[in-house]
């Protein structure tokens, strides 16, 4: 493995494309905020005070909400929860999707066609609506929001994995591994899927933004996260009633944070594609 040349390539992509560098910086900031969140803020995100609906000041950078809670603290603290929901949904979806797609692509036949049928049925629903239905049926909890988001993302991963495995199934090194006496599971999970990781990595980061949007959309309509918890979607929902009377800071700041996170992941996806798949650059 020419590791140094890979790092050189990463260096080249990052320096030649300032947007990717910016996306990586933003990503680092978001992850740090998620980790350090609660220790960064001056106020308790759940503490109500009598100073309700105050516009942004030096004391409260993002103003206060209808219960006098500090909006800045709530936006910062919410980063962890929002990121956790979408990261766990995408990871779950990736692991299950890649395994299913890999198995279908490697063995083909009825396994392949059954899986294809199942994925088609998922895709036959408007995906956000399906997620709503799943959460409504299985119970209104954060865990079910994660599962629902994972299910609606599943087809994308399974399809990428299947396509990549089908391409590699007949290649020389797979045949060599078979000749050397490796079993099919070992070849699939030990060789073929790791080899197909780069295109799936791109899919992950492109999907992450979409997963955050979906999870926030679900909590905006009252699913998953419950009222006093700080989460971007529910904060926008709580502030929605005040926008017509001009209290803009309740919506703009959590909504802006959400937008920034999604924007970062979308840019990062493009950047990762440049690193892992230079041929497909636009």
């Amino acid at each position, binding site marked *: 493995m020419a590791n140094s040349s890979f790092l050189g390539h990463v260096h080249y992509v990052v320096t030649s494309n300032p947007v990717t560098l910016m996306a990586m910086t933003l990503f680092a900031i978001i992850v740090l905020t998620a980790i350090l969140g609660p220790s960064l803020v001056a106020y308790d995100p759940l503490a109500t005070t009598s100073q309700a609906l105050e516009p942004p000041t030096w004391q409260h950078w993002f103003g206060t909400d209808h219960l006098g809670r500090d909006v800045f603290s709530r936006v910062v603290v919410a980063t962890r929860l929002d990121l956790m929901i979408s990261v766990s949904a995408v990871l779950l979806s990736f692991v299950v999707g890649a395994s299913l797609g890999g198995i279908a692509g490697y063995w083909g036949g009825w396994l392949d066609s059954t899986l294809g049928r199942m994925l088609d049925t998922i895709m036959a629903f*408007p995906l956000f609506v399906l997620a709503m239905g799943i959460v409504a049926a299985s119970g209104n909890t954060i865990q079910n929001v994660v599962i629902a988001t994972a299910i609606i993302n599943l087809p994308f991963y399974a399809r990428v994995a299947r396509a990549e495995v089908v391409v590699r199934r007949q290649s020389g090194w797979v045949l060599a591994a078979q000749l050397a006496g490796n079993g099919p599971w070992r070849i699939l999970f030990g060789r073929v899927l790791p080899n197909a990781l780069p295109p799936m990595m791109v899919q992950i980061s492109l999907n992450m933004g979409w997963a955050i949007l979906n999870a926030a*959309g679900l909590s905006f309509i009252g699913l998953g996260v419950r009222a006093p918890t700080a989460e971007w979607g529910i904060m926008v929902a709580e502030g929605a009633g005040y926008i017509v009377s001009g209290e803009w800071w309740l919506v703009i700041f959590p909504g802006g944070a959400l937008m920034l996170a999604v924007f970062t992941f979308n840019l990062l996806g493009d950047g990762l594609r440049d690193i892992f798949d230079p041929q497909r650059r636009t």
Partner: protein
Amino acid sequence: MGRVLVVFKRVMQAIPTIVGIVIITFLLTRALPGDPAAFFAGPAATPESIAEIRQQLGLDQPLPVQFGRYLLDLTRGDLGQSMTTGQPVMAELIRRLPASLELTLVALLLSMVIALPLGILAATHQDTWIDQVCRFVVTAGVSLPTFFTGLLLVYVFYFLLGWSPPPLGRLDILYLPPTQVTGFYLIDALIAGEFDVFWSALKQLALPAITLALFTLAPLARMTRASMLQSLASDYVRTARACGLSYGKVLRTYALRNALLPVITTLGMVFSFSLGANVLVEKVFSWPGIGSFAIEALVASDYAAVQGFVLAMALLFVVLNLCVDLVYTLVDPRVKIDG
């Protein structure tokens, strides 16, 4: 004749999809944890009354029997009763569907009117500032949460500028809805000749439609740009240019027509997006469509209503996709040979 056969085949292909949708919608309410009978009985129910309701709903039967019963109800157009409104779910959905359809279709139209020229301009002016603007709009478009864009527009155009009416439904309370013909207020008002009602409905519709259009703009513009670039680089465009045809003629007749085919295919994805985003937009603008009905039902754990909503949306999606495919079949002569 061959073309009719292709269309027929495509319509037949939708049947397994519909079967899948019906099975999943059924399983969503029956096989997952949570007891519908307890939901229907309400919080003050005794075990006996829950058992009675379970028997009433047929929930004590084995699953295949329940499924048969569900299918029978479906063929009669019976989706059960909504607990929140006390009306049959089917009646509620039909009453509210025109509002959602009007919003979605106007938004799609608007989004296509903006996205196609934007994508074409970006492709013909590759790597210029127009291309950069297009790229920015596309990336911003997919990053903006619909509900956030909606509220932002309300703040700017209602609160700050006062151009737009308050985000409360389809019509100003001063006006009565026009006599129902299509259920679309814009068309009905024109049919009735009530131009002030038309104007009011249009003003109410503007912001939600723009919100939804902004969201669906991105995939359409991106696809138009990509397929336009591909078709501009093709041999037939070079040949057409070499034969001395004018740039405009080549662009319109050869490049654009071929580039539109992949764009039509992405419409399916766009529909999926916009039907989902529709729910959020309806909540922001208190739009009395099936999305806000579903949200009220979700909050109240109104099972039958949510199930009916998911089924209705999925069937709508199938029908829209079918229409797109049929248009595709009619536009692309090669499909006939392949099919």
